């Protein structure tokens, strides 16, 4: 019986070719817009997370318990070498790098400004952050005594490559002030305004001297093999994979915890996407209901005949629902396909962004949409699953059909 109903539904669909094509086009266009919009959002999210993780944070970080909450400078990871070696050996970890932070004063001649001192290991840092590629002038850190500063800070202090800069920071253990002279080796321009304006990046060994510490850091940043942990899509996998291996006294934070403003933005986007889906689908549903209403009225006499032949109203309702389900499935399939093609084109051309600032990051390069197949199919299936609900109103007419009046209908 099902194949009979399917055949009837499919043929009925093409009785009014133009009307069916228009409705199909409306569904496909709605779905394509949604898929493309979703791809844009996905591309935007990947970019935003990439900026957050590559400009500074990494995909996860190890800290001493409570450091992430309080940022107290005395909450240091001691036995740094041992801990970083251990972290490097964890399954799925591609690279690790330590960082030490301290508020400090940068002075050049009679000009001085508050900065955040960041002590890094120049050998391992490029595995995590993109600072090396973001050098605007000069070169990356090579040896103790080198310093890298952001472009805006360089402009503020009127510094250029080779310029001298004195950093003064407090000893973390006893509070005494320590100063050291640095030579500017590189000026970087980052999409993270914080780095451009307030950061002074120095060799970890120099940072130890200035802060009176040794073999210690405030954080160890980690990145993962994408083959093991797709941390962008599902950061909680990081915790599931690694939590059991974290040494006592330390805690692991994934990028969602490190970049709460980005995580919030993503949540908002997901909500906005769902809202868009509902709005688009509501409009498409109105179109479908109208088409269905017309299709039912045109075929009232036929439904009367079917009823006279012994067809139960619920079977006729199933026939009409099947018709529109087929239309919905075709429309959704074409829509996903069309949306994918548009996404492919934009992946090739890119969508130019003009220095847009989002969640504290400046987006400069073109945006490349990223197809989110899972979600595209999920929305397509959701739409098809909603069709029987859209059809409930128009099919009421069939359930209340008076056979004799229907047979006289012209």
């Amino acid at each position, binding site marked *: 019986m099902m194949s*009979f109903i399917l055949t009837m539904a499919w043929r009925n669909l093409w009785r009014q070719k133009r009307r069916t094509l228009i409705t199909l086009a409306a569904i496909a266009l709605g779905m394509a817009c949604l898929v493309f919009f979703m791809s844009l959002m996905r591309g935007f999210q990947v970019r935003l997370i990439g900026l957050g993780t590559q400009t500074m944070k990494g995909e996860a970080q190890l800290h001493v318990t409570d450091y992430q909450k309080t940022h107290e400078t005395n909450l240091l990871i001691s036995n740094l070498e041992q801990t970083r070696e251990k972290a490097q050996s964890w399954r799925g970890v591609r690279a690790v790098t330590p960082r030490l932070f301290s508020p400090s004063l940068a002075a050049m001649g009679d000009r001085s400004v508050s900065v955040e001192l960041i002590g890094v290991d120049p050998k391992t840092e490029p595995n995590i952050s993109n600072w090396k590629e973001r050098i605007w002038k000069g070169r990356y850190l090579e040896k103790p005594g080198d310093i890298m500063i952001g472009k805006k800070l360089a402009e503020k202090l009127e510094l250029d490559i080779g310029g001298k800069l004195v950093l003064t920071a407090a000893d973390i253990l006893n509070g005494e002030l320590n100063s050291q002279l640095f030579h500017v080796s590189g000026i970087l321009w980052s999409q993270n305004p914080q780095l451009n304006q307030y950061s002074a990046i120095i060799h970890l060994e120099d940072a130890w001297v200035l802060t009176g510490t040794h073999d210690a850091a405030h954080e160890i940043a980690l990145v993962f093999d994408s083959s093991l942990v797709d941390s962008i899509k599902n950061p909680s996998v990081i915790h599931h994979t690694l939590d059991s291996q974290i040494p006592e006294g330390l805690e692991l934070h994934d990028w969602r915890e490190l970049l709460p403003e980005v995580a919030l933005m993503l949540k908002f986007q997901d909500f906005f996407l769902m809202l868009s889906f509902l709005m688009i689908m509501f409009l498409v549903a109105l179109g479908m209901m109208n088409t269905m209403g017309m299709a039912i009225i045109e075929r009232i006499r036929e439904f009367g005949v079917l009823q006279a032949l*012994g067809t139960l109203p619920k079977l006729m309702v199933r026939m009409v629902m099947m018709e529109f389900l087929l239309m919905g499935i075709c429309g959704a399939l074409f829509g996903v396909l069309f949306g994918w093609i548009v996404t492919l084109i934009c992946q090739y051309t890119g969508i130019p962004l003009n220095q847009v600032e989002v969640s504290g990051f400046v987006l400069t390069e073109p945006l490349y949409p990223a197809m989110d197949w899972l979600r595209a199919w999920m929305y397509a299936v959701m739409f098809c699953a909603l069709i029987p609900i859209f059809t409930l109103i128009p099919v009421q007419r069939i359930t209340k059909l008076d056979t004799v009046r229907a047979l006289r209908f012209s």
Partner: protein
Amino acid sequence: MTQSMVSCKKIKKYFETKSEVVKALDDINLDIELGDFIAFAGPSGSGKTTLLNLIGMLDSPTDGDIQIRGKSVLDLDRSSQANLRKREIGFIFQAYNLIPVLTVRENVEYVMMLQGQPAEERHQRASEVLEEVGLAGLENRRPAELSGGQQQRVAVARAIASKPAIVLADEPTANLDSVTGVALIDTMERLNREHGLTFIFSTHDPRVMDRASRLVRLKDGHIQPS
């Protein structure tokens, strides 16, 4: 006492308009036996189609009782009536009323499909019936590709394919030319004779009335004495 195939007892069917009550059928008593080839004759508005609709459970009377094989059909709910209809009654309509999206074969198979018959059986039965009404070779055509006479023969094939006990035909020859109309009646008569099918049809065509084994004349909702 033998049981009638169809029994109408004191049937009344009134339609209320804003200003008056129209008595489409008034106090109809009628017994139809198995194998009858019975015609309801009368002018337009005499109540022929209304009586056929009531016997076919497409409508319900204002008063009275209708029994099929001795059981009242008015006690049945809508879906039980539909089930009884697809099991016991075949319909032939004046305007053919074939399903335009189905082929000739699929139209003939439709009621059997509703009955849940397996595809192979349906297929075989449809071929037999189409052969019987002279439409072999046209199985895969759509109704729109057939003449009026051919369409009405498909309707006959559809009506008898599921082997009902009764075939109700509402002015089956009205839309056909005289030669085609007579040929259709020949076919119906042969099916009645050979298979013992009960045919109940309405007509106002004197040539068709002459062929009926029993004629019931209706006027203004009453059966006229013969």
